[in-house]
């Protein structure tokens, strides 16, 4: 059972993550001025759900905090607290603490310190938001006292103290003891605690349900049965009100029951039986003899009247439907911006809450398995095709089968695709924290967050992304005064964007800070022995140095980015994914980091080529054309560099056999080979010299690092139709790496 509970709890935490994301999105929208009822409600609902689950799973600290947070949100939702800039700012702060609480609950670590935030929330409640609104000029002293008073009586949601006038006494009890599957122990302990001295007289219960008690699916007889289960018995039924049969109204109630319940039963238990009885019913509970009542336990106030040994007054009072409960009138005037917040009217713009589509949760391993199977299907399909005669290959069934397979493949891939938003979602908070740590102001712009990428990619870019952003704020963006002095706006700008380009996803982090301090980076690289003191490096090469292993200027600059890992980890993480990192920096204007990642780590449309009689796969997305060179079309421009002339342009050519050091046949003439022109993000058009082209096919990418490690220049391997392995070429790495003969002079660590 506890396994099941763990599993449910795991889902609860997933929901928390979703809820936090929704809350943050809503709060951000509010900060941007969208205070529509829908937006506020979405934030409220998210926090409310977290609170609900936290109680159910016994996370007391999370429960207490989310409860107080919800209280404030409830007031904002009701329009009693205006969603002013000041209030929203505090709500965002509270949101951060809430995230910490969720994390703490999940990791079972110490909850974050939230006293200050709780006090702040109480203050907002007490002053109806005026305390955090500079403009509204509340009486500060009064506000402060209110806040203190509120803090002293924390509204603990766990135990319901109020007597419920509406017949809905909560059945909940002390949550610390909660065992959602248990059959103990609260009722028992109540008995123990409250067990009165022996020889108490029996209880006499008079129960006259009202007409309403029969409405709403109410059934008084069930209450009598419940009392009977407690040992009670019906001693008398007063049926004097019963009219003649003809006048009987089947929806009216005519009987009054007198039930004797053993004195050993605690009165609260009897009261509970009437929890759901309509308010205007008659319920009287009295002792047959007046004896000493049990000592009430102050912690258990389910029985608000236990101390009274007097004849009972009805527990359930007859009242009319409620007036609004004694809500505190606002102490100060609410700031004058509340119209949107108060009126639950049309939302601003068309962006309503996203429709929650129906979903099921599937274990990722099952998807992976499905993907593998589809991959096998693709392979079997090509084996089959290979074995058929050319005439048979043309028959309609085979293309149909291929198309179906392709569709299944696409569907499976789309199951794994997730909006990159998930990876971006923690950025706003990180920036808030970084801002407060560094005193720098940063305005975040996000673009393309709905771009979909494979789940495995999302999971793996989190850390690199975090580091790039920390790096941008820490090293890039200047402090406000420095910015002003340089003629920039005091608030820095950080732009986070994602876009799909062919089979690649580009994730960019762009800041408008000071740019890379190349002199300093260079000096550091020399000091660390990464480059020789007299090395001549282009600006771009210096920029790349910050990704070199062992390079980190962090400890001398601040403690934010310098956490023992540097940009080299970013680079290796990204390369492990088959991607790479580009850096563009303009001194004084800012730096852009670009992660270029494969769209999927699973399937590739490829061209099978031969190099030294070994088959390789080139991603078709990079292939522009293939050329069989005429004599003289490929020329050597240096001992190690060749170019091909193509329609008047000269493109660099790489001999891949040499690049890979394949011991093939004798170096051949270019005319005996094919030059495949590929387009790369980093080097534009470039020709790759191969022996021949076999065919074109979809291949399933098998990573090399599953059992080995990534190899530069290779994007993985695949299994061809005959069961043999072909290596997949990583065009970007191929064109980015210098030819092998010059690689010795390349930067240590960059070409390895």
């Amino acid at each position, binding site marked *: 059972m506890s396994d099941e509970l763990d599993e449910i*709890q795991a889902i609860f935490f997933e929901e928390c993550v979703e809820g936090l994301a929704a809350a943050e999105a809503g709060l951000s929208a509010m900060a941007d001025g969208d205070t529509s009822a829908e937006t506020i409600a979405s934030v409220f*609902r998210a926090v409310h759900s977290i609170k609900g689950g936290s109680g*159910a799973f016994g996370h007391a600290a999370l429960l207490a905090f989310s409860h107080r947070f919800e209280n404030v949100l409830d007031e904002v939702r009701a329009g009693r607290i205006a969603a002013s800039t000041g209030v929203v700012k505090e709500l965002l702060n509270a949101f951060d603490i809430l995230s910490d609480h969720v994390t703490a609950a999940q990791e079972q670590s110490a909850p974050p310190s939230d006293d200050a935030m709780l006090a702040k929330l109480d203050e907002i409640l007490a002053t109806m938001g005026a305390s955090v609104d500079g403009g509204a000029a509340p009486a500060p002293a009064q506000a402060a006292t209110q806040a203190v008073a509120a803090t002293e009586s924390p509204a603990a949601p766990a135990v319901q103290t109020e007597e419920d006038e509406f017949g809905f006494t909560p059945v*909940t009890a002390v949550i610390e003891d909660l065992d959602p599957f248990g*059959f103990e122990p609260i009722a028992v302990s109540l008995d123990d605690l409250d067990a009165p001295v022996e020889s108490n007289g029996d209880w006499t219960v008079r129960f006259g349900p009202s007409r309403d008690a029969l409405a*709403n*699916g109410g059934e008084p007889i069930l209450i009598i049965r419940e009392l009977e289960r407690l040992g009670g018995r019906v001693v008398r039924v007063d049926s004097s009100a019963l009219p003649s049969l003809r006048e009987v109204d089947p929806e009216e109630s005519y009987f009054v029951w007198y039930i004797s319940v053993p004195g050993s039963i605690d009165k609260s238990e009897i009261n509970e039986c009437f929890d759901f009885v309509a308010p205007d019913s008659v319920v009287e509970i009295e002792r047959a003899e007046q004896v000493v009542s049990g000592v009430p336990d102050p912690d258990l106030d389910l029985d608000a009247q236990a101390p009274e040994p007097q004849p009972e007054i009805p527990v359930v009072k007859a009242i009319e439907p409620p007036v609004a409960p004694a809500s505190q009138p606002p102490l100060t005037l609410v700031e004058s911006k509340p119209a949107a917040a108060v009126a639950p009217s049309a939302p601003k713009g068309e962006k309503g809450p996203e429709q929650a589509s129906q979903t099921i949760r599937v274990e990722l391993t099952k998807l992976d398995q499905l993907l593998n199977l589809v991959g096998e299907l693709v392979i079997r399909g090509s084996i089959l095709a290979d074995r058929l005669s050319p005439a048979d290959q043309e028959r309609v069934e085979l293309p149909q089968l291929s198309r179906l397979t392709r569709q299944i493949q696409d569907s499976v891939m789309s199951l794994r695709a997730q909006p990159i938003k998930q990876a971006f979602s923690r950025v706003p908070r990180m920036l808030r924290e970084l801002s407060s740590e560094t005193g720098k102001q940063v305005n975040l712009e996000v673009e393309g967050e709905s771009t979909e990428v494979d789940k495995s990619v999302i999971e793996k870019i989190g850390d690199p992304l975090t580091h790039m952003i920390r790096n941008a704020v820490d090293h890039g963006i200047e402090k406000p005064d420095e910015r002003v002095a340089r003629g920039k706006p005091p608030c820095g700008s950080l732009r986070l964007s994602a876009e799909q380009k062919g089979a690649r996803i580009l994730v960019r982090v762009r800041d408008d800070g000071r740019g890379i301090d190349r002199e300093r980076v260079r000096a550091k690289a020399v000091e660390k022995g990464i480059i020789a003191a007299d090395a001549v490096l282009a600006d771009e090469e210096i920029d790349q140095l910050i990704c070199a292993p062992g390079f980190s200027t962090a400890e001398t600059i601040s403690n934010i980015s310098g956490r023992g890992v540097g940009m080299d980890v970013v680079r290796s993480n990204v390369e492990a994914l088959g991607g790479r990192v580009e850096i563009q920096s303009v001194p004084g204007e800012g730096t852009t980091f670009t992660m270029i990642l494969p769209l999927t780590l699973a399937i590739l449309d490829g061209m099978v080529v031969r190099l030294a009689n070994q088959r390789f796969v080139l991603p078709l997305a990079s292939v522009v054309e293939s050329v069989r060179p005429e004599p003289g079309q490929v020329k050597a421009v240096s001992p190690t560099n060749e170019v091909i002339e193509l329609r008047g342009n000269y493109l660099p050519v790489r001999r891949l056999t040499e690049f890979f050091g394949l011991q093939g046949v004798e170096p051949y003439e270019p005319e005996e080979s094919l030059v495949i022109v590929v387009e790369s993000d980093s080097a534009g058009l470039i020709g790759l010299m191969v022996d021949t082209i076999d065919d074109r096919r979809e291949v399933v990418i098998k990573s090399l690092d599953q059992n080995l490690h990534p190899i530069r220049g290779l994007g993985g391997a695949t299994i061809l139709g005959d069961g043999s392995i072909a290596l997949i070429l990583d065009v970007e790495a191929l064109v980015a790496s210098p030819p092998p003969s010059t690689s010795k002079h390349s930067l240590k660590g960059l070409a390895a």
Partner: protein
Amino acid sequence: MSKLILTVDDSASMRMLLKASLTAQGFTIESANDGVHGLERMHEVKPDLLITDINMPKMDGFELIEAVRAVPEFRGTPILVLSTEFSDDKKARARNAGATGWITKPFDATKLGTAIRRVCP
């Protein structure tokens, strides 16, 4: 015979928790994740009892209760609200809408079972 209960809650963990704890007590549980879906399920499964959350996207708990009560067939079906909210005006709203009882989250499984037997014949 095992009582059939329809639980409506937008939180999957809450639905699962309810299902696990009530199944353990001999109830049969069906669930829905919002008011609209809940109303559909009411017609499909015709439960002995409806337990609904209040704060839900699309149709909230109040609206669901009203909609269920508007169906003659469900006029006598007991409805319990299970919510973290406990304000009196909410409870009154629920009763006016047609709720039979109100239980505040977090719930104790045993007491929830008792409460169910209190309204569910």
